[in-house]
């Protein structure tokens, strides 16, 4: 039952990916669920891999901040931190 609930939830949070776009599999690691739940509401995840590996920690922090401050992404503080940590660890340079 618990497994089923998780599967349904996963299906819901990945809805923002358009039905006919090529899925992008980012590196599986802590925080990927937050990345998938937030970032792809507005853009495909290829932006992340494309912008790697050259951004340092400050660079990825600036990108997450830009998405929230300049583009109005409704990402709460906890998710923003989890996303930034994921990006620094897995796509930092």
């Amino acid at each position, binding site marked *: 039952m618990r497994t089923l609930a998780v599967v349904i939830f996963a299906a819901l949070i990945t*809805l*923002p*990916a*358009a*039905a*006919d*776009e*090529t899925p*992008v599999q980012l590196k599986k690691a802590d925080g990927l669920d937050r990345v998938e739940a937030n970032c*792809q*509401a*507005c*853009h*495909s995840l*290829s*932006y992340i*891999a*494309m*912008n*790697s*590996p*050259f*951004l340092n920690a400050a*660079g990825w922090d600036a*990108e997450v901040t830009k998405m929230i401050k*300049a*583009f*109005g*992404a*409704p990402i709460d503080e906890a998710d923003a931190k989890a996303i930034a940590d994921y990006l620094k660890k897995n*796509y930092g340079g």
Partner: protein
Amino acid sequence: MITRRHVLGTVGGGAALAVSGLKFSTADAAGIALTPGVPAGLDSVAAMEALPGKKPLIRLSDRPPNYESPLEYFRTPITPNDQFFVRYHLSDIPEIKAESYKIAVGGDGANGQAEITLDDLKKMPIFEVVAVNQCSGNRRGLSRPHVPGVEWGYGAMGCAHWKGARLKDVLDKVGLKKEAIEVSFNGADGPAYDKTPDFIKSIPVWKAIEETTLIAYEMNGQPLPHLNGFPARIIVPGWTGTYWMKHVITINALTKPQGGFWMNPAYRLPLGKFPLVARFTSQEYAPNTPITEIVVNSLITSHRDGDKVKPGKVTVGGIAWDGGYGIRSVDVSTDGGRTWSSAILGQDVGRFAFRPWSFELFAKRGKNTVMINATNKIGQSQTSELIFNPAGYNNNVMQNISLMAR
């Protein structure tokens, strides 16, 4: 709040207004040749992919759609519509019917207001221009250090024969006040999320009323492809693509500078770093200024870096272009820039167009290098070192490729 259109497009799947027309037919990761020097991470996501009505382009992102043309598509001075690059900032891209299309013209810098249909546009005096549409960020992926953004290689550009009405003639329908300083554009495409700034751009009045600035409804003799701005887009020959508003639905004359994210801080160059002739002074706020004209540039299209050739005579060729002053010469060096020889220029189809060139060299056995430098008619030429800027714009570093003869 996610917009209704976006919800329809995602939950409805097939309805897919937000991404309509983006049902893919082919994707081929193996056959892809990225521009040397783009970020390594691009390898894992880029693919050759044919959008509806298009030949395969290099997909950098599919939402919003950002697809560049591979090098081979630049072997002709006119880029066919089905080979022309695609670039969007925002992913809500509605299909617009020609019959219901209207442009609202007005603004506080206009004496009146007007609504212009596609038929109205077509009944106005017709003007045509061959011009390069180049994304401001073309070659961003080659910046050192790398800078964030869409990591374009050589292919975020194309040259087409545009046909439409003069923007000036459309503005004359409402009349410009003498206080008008800018003309702004909005397109029908918008953000997936309503807090994201809509893509609105302006140009100075002096540029808006130039005889070559058009509202184009034809591209290479055909209606514009959906993803290149159907039914009509703004054409600003000589200036980078950011001002060439696709699916234009609003044109406003303004007595005050256009605000918003896409005017500032986006699309800015550090003041004083580039030798720009065309200035957008109402938008100049230190320390930067809007990007304006295309810097003089060239590209080898006959060969890729590292290609194998036979020893002996080899004809190398490509294209050169600039912000509309016209190409005076293309010079080629086979000794790393110590000595230079003139290439033969091909057909001149207009000062805003790609100018073909060719050069015959003698390839010795082993490694040969070919370096190119274009000069325009006001004496500007390409740079040997990158002029670094935070957004990776105006990269016109001379290309230098190797050919292996054996």
